């Protein structure tokens, strides 16, 4: 006899964080706008800079990485780079940067050593350092030249879904505010309208996604390996999902672009033990390549593939049988808003997988005996 599983028994704090993005969206938008208005005229670099470096560790750098398109939209001609904190603090040649280069260091806690090291190194090189944080008393906040206090409402942030969203939204708002400063035009009200529009469309589908991914967590309960295939900005959203797969149910999850999959990861086997997630936006330039890759994942590799997209597999050109979940995307002109929600289906899957496996997040929490030598490394080089 078929067993029945009640979703309510498998909900957990991480799933609730996914739900929490709904009410958080416009509240956080207004909070970040209020904060950005306090700082935007504080430093002349916001008016003149042609180079912005977004940095951070873990989820925070992944938030920076998905904001390049927002920079291209609001600040054409400005060179935006997302540089991992380790790379920026130890390897990057800051000495050759223009003095009005801005480093936006994202860390909600403001206590991450490597991120703080980037700020200190930026200060030493005379750059404008911005601590984008929710902790105004943190070391990052105190060390940076400018404090961008994101001022999030209280809530559970374990495994960081909310904070990731807050970072992305706050980055985008900073870009729009800089554009307002530089052009004298008003951009933030229109941005708020578009965020609301995308939000409404996305969350109208949320329950269907939630049901589908709950079911998928059971169907894929015995999968041993997980992988995400995605390109462009969605690659970085995929990296966030991969991080959640590690932190929440405890799975290693690879992320690869659709070209390199064909050169390398297609060789991993046995395919039947893989749960493959493909993140695709129908109006992006990669569709022909990734559609072929997904078809090959099924045909050649024998993998089960779940496609997250705004168009059906057939419409995308996928020729093999795959599972499909409809995921709304913003209008093409506003494509840079896509990272605000594109990770949520993957996050939901990770939440349900943890519940289905009975796995505690972070394997039961931080054990400082174990983490002593790594996470809280006190070593700082500037």
């Amino acid at each position, binding site marked *: 006899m078929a067993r029945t599983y009640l979703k309510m028994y498998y909900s957990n704090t991480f799933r609730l964080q996914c739900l929490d993005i709904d009410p958080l969206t416009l509240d956080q938008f207004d909070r970040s706008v209020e904060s950005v208005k306090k700082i935007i005229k504080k430093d002349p670099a916001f008016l003149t800079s042609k180079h912005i470096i977004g940095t951070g*560790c*873990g*989820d925070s*750098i992944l938030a920076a990485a998905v904001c390049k398109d927002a920079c*291209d939209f609001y600040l*054409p*001609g400005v*060179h935006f780079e997302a540089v*991992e*904190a*380790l*790379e920026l603090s*130890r*390897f990057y*040649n800051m000495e*050759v940067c223009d003095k009005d280069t801005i480093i936006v260091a994202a860390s909600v806690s403001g206590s991450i050593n*490597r991120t703080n090291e980037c700020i200190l190194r930026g200060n030493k090189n005379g750059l404008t350092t911005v601590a984008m944080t929710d902790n105004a008393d943190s070391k990052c906040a105190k060390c940076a030249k400018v404090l961008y206090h994101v001022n999030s409402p209280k809530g559970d942030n374990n495994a960081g879904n909310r904070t990731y969203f807050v970072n992305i939204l706050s980055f985008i708002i900073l870009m729009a505010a800089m554009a307002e400063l530089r052009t004298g035009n008003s951009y933030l009200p229109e941005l708020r309208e578009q965020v609301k529009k995308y939000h409404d469309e996305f969350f109208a589908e949320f329950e269907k996604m939630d049901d589908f991914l709950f079911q998928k967590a059971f169907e894929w309960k015995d999968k*041993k*390996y997980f992988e995400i295939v995605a*390109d*462009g*900005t969605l*690659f970085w959203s995929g990296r966030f999902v*991969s*991080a959640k797969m*590690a*932190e929440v149910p*405890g*799975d*290693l*999850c*690879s*992320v690869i*672009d*659709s*070209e*390199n999959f064909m*050169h*390398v*990861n297609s*060789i*991993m*086997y046995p395919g039947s033990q893989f749960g493959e997630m493909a993140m695709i936006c129908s109006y*992006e*330039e*990669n569709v022909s*390549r990734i559609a072929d890759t997904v078809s090959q994942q099924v045909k050649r590799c024998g993998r089960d593939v779940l496609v997250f997209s705004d168009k059906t597999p057939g419409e995308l050109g996928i020729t093999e049988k795959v599972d499909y979940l409809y995921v709304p995307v913003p209008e093409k002109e506003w494509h840079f808003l896509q990272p605000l929600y594109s990770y949520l289906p993957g996050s939901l899957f990770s939440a349900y997988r943890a519940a289905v496996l009975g*796995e505690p997040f*972070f*394997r039961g929490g931080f054990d400082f*005996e*174990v*983490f*002593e*030598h*790594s*996470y809280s*490394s006190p*070593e700082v*080089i500037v």
Partner: protein
Amino acid sequence: MNKKDYYNTITSQIEELTELVDVQTEKCFDCEKLENLLPKGTLEDLHRVVLTGCGDSYSACGAMLQGFKLLSGIELSVVPDPMEFTRYYTEWDTKQGYPDDEVLVIAVSASGGSERIVEILKKGNNMGVHSMLISNNPESNGAKEAKTVYWVETPAGCNTPGLRSYFASMIAIIALGAFIGLKKGTISEQRFMKVKQEIVDYVKNFMLDFERMDNQAFELAVQMKELDRFEAVGDGPDYFSALFVEQKVVECPGVFCIHSNSEEWCHISMMVRDNEHIGTVFMVTEDSPSYGRIVDTTWGAQRLGRPALVVTDSDKEDFAEGLNVCKIAHAPEYWMAPLMNFCPGSLLAGYQSAVNDKNFFGGKYNFRTREFKWD
């Protein structure tokens, strides 16, 4: 178990590096060849270089980026992945505001024939910038598309799963960077020749200890025989060595593998379960600016019970007991380490495949007979 029974084409290709380095440096640090790659005066004026490729070639680009920037003096050198460049890079992303004549797009591909390689070069051409193919096949489709071809002239030899071509691509990229630096005045002729000689010396010095490394890799592969998940970790240039090791683990035993840097490992990868079943390879270069951080990370791995191989040129006793430390020769400059530090992890990949009686490439390549068998 007798190591000789598990001899495979990774072992043989690494053994051949001792001879290959002489030929490859001669063919790549060839000033006349380099001089004629682009119209006179072009190299001096370059301000932006975009390097990319697929699979191992992409790893080669990333592994040499630090050295390329340092020697060429072109800070605005980048290595987007092939999809990022072909489908997402705008004209602004490619040129960063510089005139067409000051921008070079380089596709790296030993065979030169893949569809994406042609697309990379076509995209560069359509933008009006210089396009170059670094390849061992001057007759390939990519060669026909590129405005210029830098033929690496790797001598014939077994190249499955791609260690010779990876090594050749790295040498070519660094020779080009050094030559650009020479033309731009970033480095002197003496430094140009010194880099070439240091590479030769480094490789030969490294290979003096090959037998011990090989034995260690084999023994470790036996210990790690049952493992079906791996991770490779490296920072800066070594991040791409880690990616290359990942590629070999995927191509040889066909098992699951990811890569990371030390900071991200501490934020993400260390959170996974079943650590005792995840083989982990760390690249630890003593002169690297992140040495202390990655040493910390190896301690974290040891505390979590990960079976780990630490590939390091450090003599310091900085590593926890229980870690398998594979000492390698010290690179003359830290950016040179990726020229060889991929070897121990690659040997492990080859032996892990062999001791499990698995042929390479999902069973299609018999590393004993050196033949592919297609379905």
